[in-house]
């Protein structure tokens, strides 16, 4: 595939840099995956806990390459009529009406039924044709004049049937529409495909085999600091280090849902709004609901709040 901003995908370091310019800080693994996805022309399946920037990666890639980002949000019950194509039924009905009215003209001079049928065939059948086709995200991505980024979000939420439906698209960049035929991606205009999954269920091997697999874990301290700095540059360095240490400590606790990067960023914004300069137990207690989303988690953390906060303060 050739893209207008191909040079931005020249090497892993270049990708990392260009991402960084867009405030998306990534480790070499992530950049490697993007690099390979482009050069091998393969989709990437991104897995990882919620809130580590899986969807963001696709969006940032689109922004970096200045491509359109076509997004397909998966959910239970999603089927081909919402993902690939649908017929414009209203127009099709109108067409039959029009056809009925012009029927006399078409059949003029025909003798007998067989001649009429022949004449009707000559007229051409556009009932199932491109004119009445309403493209949905997958088809749109294939037929896009320019390359695009296709984001198939939370593929684990969709049904097994839909997963199988994706296989053709992912391996050959083509889709079959029974009434029309096979639609192929324009050569060198293949979309860059990202799939994300929260692992609520195991993705089938068939799908995994067709994709590169990228697992994004929670970032380590350094990376998370960089991310917060890139996303919330206003925050003071001291506070930033403290809160990152605090979050990292929380991830070691036994919680129902540990805070992810998105929560860290939200928390940083909250702390700025509150004009805080340093963490203290009271402040943390008041803002705990920003980073923890379950009451039982909040309760269990509150018990250890003092010690965790002190640890965060001491280390920075």
């Amino acid at each position, binding site marked *: 595939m050739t893209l207008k901003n191909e040079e931005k995908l020249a090497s*892993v370091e270049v990708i990392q840099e260009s991402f960084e310019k867009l405030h998306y800080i990534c480790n*070499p*693994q992530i950049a*490697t*995956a993007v*690099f*390979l996805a482009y*050069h*091998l022309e*393969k989709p*990437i*399946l991104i*897995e990882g806990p919620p809130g580590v920037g899986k969807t963001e990666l696709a969006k940032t890639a689109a922004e970096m390459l200045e491509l359109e980002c076509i997004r397909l949000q998966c959910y239970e*019950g999603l089927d081909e*009529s919402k993902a690939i194509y*649908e*017929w414009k*039924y209203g127009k*099709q*009905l109108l067409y*039959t*009406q029009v056809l009925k009215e012009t029927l006399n003209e078409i059949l003029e001079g025909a003798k007998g039924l067989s001649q009429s049928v022949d004449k009707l065939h000559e007229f051409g059948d556009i009932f199932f044709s491109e004119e009445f086709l309403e493209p949905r995200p997958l088809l749109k991505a294939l037929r896009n004049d320019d390359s695009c980024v296709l984001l198939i979000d939370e593929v684990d939420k969709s*049904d*097994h049937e839909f997963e199988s439906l994706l296989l053709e698209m992912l391996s050959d960049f083509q889709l079959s529409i029974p009434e029309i035929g096979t639609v192929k991606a324009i050569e060198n205009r293949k979309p860059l495909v990202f799939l994300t999954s929260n692992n609520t*269920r*195991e993705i089938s*091997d068939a799908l*995994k*085999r067709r994709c*590169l*697999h*990228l*697992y994004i*874990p929670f970032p380590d301290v350094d990376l998370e600091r960089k991310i917060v700095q890139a996303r919330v540059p206003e925050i003071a360095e001291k506070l930033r280090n403290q809160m990152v240490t605090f979050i990292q400590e929380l991830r070691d606790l036994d919680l129902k849902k540990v805070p992810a990067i998105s929560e860290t960023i939200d928390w940083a914004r909250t702390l700025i709004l509150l004009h805080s300069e340093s963490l203290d137990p009271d402040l943390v207690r008041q803002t705990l609901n920003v980073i923890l989303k379950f009451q039982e988690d909040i309760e269990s953390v509150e018990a250890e709040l003092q010690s965790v906060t002190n640890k965060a303060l001491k280390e920075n």
Partner: protein
Amino acid sequence: MDRTLVDFVKVLRTAEIKVSPAETLDAMECMNIVGYEDRTFLKNSLAVVLAKNPEEKDAFYDCFDRFFAPEEFSRSEDSDDSENTDHNDFDDNDGDFNPNEGNNQQSGKGGGQGGGQGGGGEQEEELNEETTLQPTSELGKLLMTGSKTEQTIAMMEAGREVEVNQIVVFTQKGLYTRKIMDAMGLKGLQEEVSELQGHGGLPQRILAKNLKKARDLLREKVRDYVEKQFFLHADESGKQLREELLKKVKLSNLEKRNFKDVQEVVFKMAKKLIAIHSKRRKTFKRGQLDVRKTLRHNMQYDGMFFDIKWKASKVDRPKVMCICDVSGSVSNYSRFLLMFLFSLAEILPKVRSFAFSSDLGEVTKLFEHSTLEEAMARTMRDYGNGSTDYGRMLMDFKNHCIDDVNNKTTIIILGDARNNYGDPQAEILKEMYDKAKRVIWLNPEPKSSWTVGDAEMKKYAPCCHQTEVCNSLMHLERVVGNLLKSVT
């Protein structure tokens, strides 16, 4: 390099990373793009292509580090240095055993200062070449003049030739070491050494001595290499062998030390079964209006929506009730039966689990919310090790649960049907048989003893759709497989 990659893929497979041929091809393409210069880059790239879940990624990094051991890489990078170092070592010996040589002092000094001094080494090499004999055998030449990289490559090639990756058990290490040495031309070297020793001249003797020393070093190295290969290839396949055996062995004969392995096997089995059967896990909602189908169907009625089509709605809610005997008579088995029950609860969406020795108790919640060990321990504590009373169990079931049984329910009973000569209450089982879709009895005892002593299988069996012997993990796997097929 292709061959190496294939070998690597094989190693990955023994480490239980599923790599398909298509993925191997992807990996080759990926190597073409990435190149071999940057180790971490290559590692990350291959990880993206070959390992497809977090556990596999960890295993992959481990395998990569072991397979492409960094020392071999670094050797090839600074092969020049190591070459010189090598010669320094040998020169050192020369110095010691050649007190009359003119360059004695110099080489002694060079050797004494140790390896790593590239310049000095080269100089000595030149000087020594004039005075020492050169070996004639292939291996001898390699040992005396080849760089470490060349030696390593020759060793790996020989290893490939004798198929060292087929190594299975620990005791084969000696054999393979020997085989590799032979393949590298040990015979020629030995002959040369004995010939040199027989010759009697000083330079010959020195050369023989050096060759012997180098040979021993090489043997050490080969042994090391074989050991590494053993851990790479055999460690895992040995485990597979053990697991296969465990599957066949009777559950009651398993010893405590095997429990951990068994648990792993059961989990693996369960996972496999989940993968196959979880597709049917879904319970479908009511169908929606299928516009396309409706439209197409109604074209014959002049486009009037006359015959409305709905999207097929599958209502498929298999229900399983599992009753497990945990009494003393089956205590050897109950652990595994519970394990099985636990795995089953993971596979099927609607499993209700019960345990009893006399009183029936529901453990569904317990199984849902705790780990296997905890669930098993608590079940055994609460219900285990009493004397069996099947009649009582069936009575309890009738009182509490029979209303929940309908024609979609499968009832599985795990137990030996030894009722201590109590009232078997087979008529209740008959009632369950009539109401449920299927009643399956899994008995750990062999069929021949089903009617011996206080066993009531004779009375119970007619009230079951299916009775099966189930006393090894293999049985368990087969039974569960069939079960899932029929249940879902």
